[in-house]
């Protein structure tokens, strides 16, 4: 009978201890600091689920990483310029060799100088791991090496002589502190460096104006300004003392925080964003399209299917689509219709790649867009002798991607009006992706490789290159190998812009003739800001910086232009002072001497007699990702670095955390089981 008395007491005691433990445990990190609201920029729309680490060797670090680590040069698409960041200048030794001079004052946050050896070693580790700063660059670079404490030398690989990749791999490079990563890499190898979190405030060493302050993977990340950072004489000191990012359940919850004034800088999709202007929340443009469009989104038709192999079918579809209506209703007007040649004309610097003559020749409007013209679509089909009712088009979009879902529905409706047997299924993302991987889809909405200084070449390469296949490009399975010579030649002609432009127009002509994919709209570069606590945000009327989305690592200058609400903002002067236009780099390259002439046979007119895609014997596109040149591992890079041990026998088990976890859970499990046993008895 003693049992009767003891047992409830025991249960109570255990329960009490368990509850007490639980309540106390979130606070084991005893830090009593506040993050004052008025000193902090709160970001939404970057991290979901868990906060990613700050280690670029994961290939997938949190983009907030960009505030802590700076590149040698930063690229801004808005004015097509490069900002010397860690570097102070570049110099072409010859047309194949570039020297980058790192600023004398550049220092890591622990006081050590940033040197060319950091760059060299960072690249070396990337080569070993496969991901990291400069991943994939080995196809285009002979080497990146230090030729002095502050001088980095990079050499272009030839072939393929790709100046776009050569320049972006060299200039747009993010070095890491060698003295931090070397011990990890040499001791623990590839595995160790991938699993390096780099989120410990005590040990993190950064090159930028912010450093990690608080990190909890399931909750939030906070960066703190380094008031005494090395670049304050050049770039000044950013306004916000803290940059914080909290995890929200979904877009709606995050947007609610923005609306309530709990967040300042948004990278989320916001429905009807114009309604927030009354609350002091704005986007890049004050009216439609509100956002700057970045990459082009296409309607990809599966060219392996015989019914889509006739260009007339694709053109008829292009004329049948209700661009304006669909973008207004499904996309809130956040993007205009994309140009029919895939060039983003929202960014002024890229308008030069459009040719009204060429566009009108192929039946587009003078601003290079397809009309919505059902009659014309029907006529095209009639002329080609095609019965649309025998062609079934299923425009698949992943379930839950509501804007795409609605667009697909509207497109299907419009296509039915022309006579096609069209529908818009919404499978689960995994099924959708699987159908693309296996090539079993009918039609999908999809994206391209995004926007960069290789625009529009990057788009054409992504969409047209028959050597690529999903997901790295050529979703539709275009097999015209005739386009390869242009794709390979354009990047070689960096120093000869006119010749380059003429080749770009050649590709456009092929694109318009074959129309392998139909450009729909520009994927919006999500960016909204709240002026409640911070002002000075870049926008159309104050266009001092772009990219602006918080999930873009090259948006790091934005905090430098922010001041507290009530003060007068001033756009950072150093941007215009330091900016080097791409055209300047091109002319410097031309001055460096003439590279060996490019051997491309450029026919005066594009052969337009053959229907290109009908030859299914060409199987280049069907194989796995085969890219320009065979990848050779870089073993000749440097002499100063020693290879890390390749095989690491790691039997480290996280016993401390596991045990603590087990103990807490065990207590709870024990209570539960005890209850059950009482009942059973």
């Amino acid at each position, binding site marked *: 009978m003693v049992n009767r008395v003891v047992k409830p007491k025991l249960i109570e005691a255990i329960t009490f201890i368990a*509850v007490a433990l*639980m309540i106390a*445990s*979130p*606070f084991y990190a005893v830090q*009593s600091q506040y993050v004052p609201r008025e000193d*902090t920029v*709160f970001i939404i729309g970057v991290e979901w*689920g*868990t906060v990613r*680490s700050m*280690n670029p060797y994961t*290939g*997938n670090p949190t*983009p907030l990483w960009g505030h802590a680590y700076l590149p040698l040069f930063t690229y801004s*698409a808005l004015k097509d310029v490069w900002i010397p960041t860690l570097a102070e200048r570049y110099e072409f030794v010859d047309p194949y060799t570039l020297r980058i001079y790192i600023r004398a004052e550049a220092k890591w946050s622990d006081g050590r100088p940033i040197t060319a050896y950091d760059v060299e070693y960072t690249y070396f580790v990337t080569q070993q791991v496969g*991901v990291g700063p400069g991943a*994939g660059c080995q*196809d*285009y670079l002979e080497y990146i090496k230090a030729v002095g404490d502050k001088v980095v030398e990079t050499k272009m690989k030839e072939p393929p002589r790709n100046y776009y990749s050569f320049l972006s791999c060299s200039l747009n490079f993010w070095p890491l502190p060698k003295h931090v990563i070397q011990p990890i890499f040499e001791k623990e190898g590839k595995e160790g460096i*991938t*699993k390096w*979190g780099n989120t410990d405030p005590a040990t993190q060493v950064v090159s930028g104006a912010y450093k990690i302050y608080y990190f909890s993977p*399931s*909750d939030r990340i906070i960066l703190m300004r380094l008031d005494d950072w090395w670049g304050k004489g050049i770039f000044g000191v950013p306004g916000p003392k803290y940059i914080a990012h*909290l995890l*929200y*359940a*979904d877009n709606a919850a995050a947007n*609610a*925080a923005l609306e309530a004034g*709990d967040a300042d800088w948004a990278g989320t999709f916001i429905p009807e964003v114009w309604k927030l202007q009354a609350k002091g929340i704005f986007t890049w443009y004050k009216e439609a399209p509100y956002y700057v469009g970045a990459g082009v989104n296409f309607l990809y038709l599966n060219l392996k299917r015989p019914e889509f192999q006739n260009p007339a079918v694709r053109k008829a579809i292009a004329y049948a689509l209700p661009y304006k209506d669909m973008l207004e209703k499904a996309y809130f007007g956040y993007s205009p219709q994309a140009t029919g040649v895939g060039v983003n004309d929202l960014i002024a610097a890229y308008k030069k790649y459009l040719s009204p003559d060429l566009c009108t020749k192929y039946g587009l409007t003078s601003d290079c867009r397809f009309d919505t013209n059902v009659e014309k679509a029907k006529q095209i089909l009639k002329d080609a002798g095609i019965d649309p009712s025998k062609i079934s088009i299923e425009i698949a979009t992943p379930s839950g991607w509501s804007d795409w879902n609605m667009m697909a529905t509207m497109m299907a409706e419009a296509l039915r009006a022309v006579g096609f047997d069209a529908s818009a299924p919404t499978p689960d*993302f*995994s*099924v959708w*992706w699987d159908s693309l*991987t296996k090539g079993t889809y009918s039609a999908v909405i999809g994206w391209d*490789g*995004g926007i960069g*200084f290789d625009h529009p070449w990057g788009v054409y390469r*992504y969409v047209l290159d028959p050597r690529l296949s999903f997901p790295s490009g050529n979703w539709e399975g275009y097999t015209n190998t005739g386009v390869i010579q242009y794709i390979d030649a354009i990047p070689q002609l960096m120093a000869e812009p006119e010749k380059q432009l003429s080749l770009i127009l050649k590709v456009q002509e092929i694109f318009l003739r074959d129309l392998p994919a139909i450009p729909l709209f520009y994927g919006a570069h999500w960016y909204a800001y709240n002026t409640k606590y911070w002002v000075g945000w870049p926008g159309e009327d104050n266009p001092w910086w772009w990219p602006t989305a918080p999930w873009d690592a*090259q948006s790091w200058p934005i905090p430098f232009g922010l001041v507290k609400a009530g003060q007068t903002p001033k756009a950072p002067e150093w941007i215009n002072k330091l900016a080097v236009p791409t055209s300047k780099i091109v002319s410097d390259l031309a001055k460096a001497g003439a590279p060996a002439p490019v051997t491309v046979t450029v026919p005066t007119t594009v052969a337009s007699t053959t229907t290109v895609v009908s030859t299914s014997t060409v199987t280049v596109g069907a194989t796995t*990702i085969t890219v320009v040149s065979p990848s050779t591992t870089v073993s000749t890079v440097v002499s100063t670095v020693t290879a890390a041990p390749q095989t690491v026998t790691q039997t480290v*088990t*996280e016993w401390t955390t*596991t045990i*603590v*976890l*087990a103990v*807490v*859970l*065990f207590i*709870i*499990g*024990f209570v*539960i089981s005890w*209850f*059950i046993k*009482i*009942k059973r008895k």
Partner: protein
Amino acid sequence: MISKSLAKYLGFRLAFLLVTYIVALSIVFILLRLVPTNPVDRLITQLLQLNPNITPEQLREYMKAYYALFELDKPLWMQYITYLSKAFRGDLGFSYINVGRKVSDIIMSALPWTLFLVVPATLAAWFVGNSIGAYAGYKRGSLFEKTLLIVSLILSQTPYYWFAMLLLFAFAYRLNIFPPGQAYPPTMLPSLTPQFIQAALYHYILPFLSIFVASLGGWAIGMRVLTIYELGSDHILFTEALGTKDSIVFRYVFRNSIIPQVTGLALSLGGAVGGALLTEIVFSYPGMGYVLNRAITQTDYPVVQGVFVILIATLFLANFLVDFVYALIDPRIRIGGEKA
């Protein structure tokens, strides 16, 4: 001294435990891999959408590196063996989507919040629900009982996540009385200061209420019925006939009818480690449910596996230990073991 029969009994239990553990782990492993995509696809999608200018070469390198790193290039049976052996060593591995992040780190940062939210709410709902349920059963036919029955029925049939959304809408977005989510204010960092605890409790009220109120009704209804049964039993009738005070009778009734409810409590606490999935999502509460939900949609195998390994392992181990203790205390169980 552990007798032979006891050792035999425990050995049998241990073997049984081992088999169930492996089966449970295997089910988790297989279910995850039935989804047609793999984590690398998810990662690649993220990269393609967020990186402004990712080149095909980069993608190729990334995919190669990820397949190697996650060991997805190895045959499935090898992955399975690695997974099992790690599960037994207590190594939860590394997240695939949040590359390189330890699963144990993620769970450690989420679990306390979940327990903090679910356990007190469940206990409180249990306690209050049973008290008023018992009282209603005792006062059968009164206005209180009738009202309670109707209210409880409605509450117990209300989906708790929907109720949570209503609370959020009314008190956070319309009335602005409570914060609209998170576990503590954006401007604070966890610490053991009174301000922080106060703020955390303030953020705690709505999620707590949503679980508390939604599960209250169920307990009350159950307890009411049990009490009514108990009131009709012979020994209570006899006690009443003896003219015992009402309060004492009530205590007897309560004691006896609570037992099935204890089992029910145990069961709902058992689910606590998994988190109040939807409540946490509605309130952006940084708990296990939120982590698990994201991990499942992103096919982040190791995180999902980690959550389940912990759940399964602790429950099994605790069960085993209870068995062990009972076997020591109660000879009948040992004898039962002998017979088996």
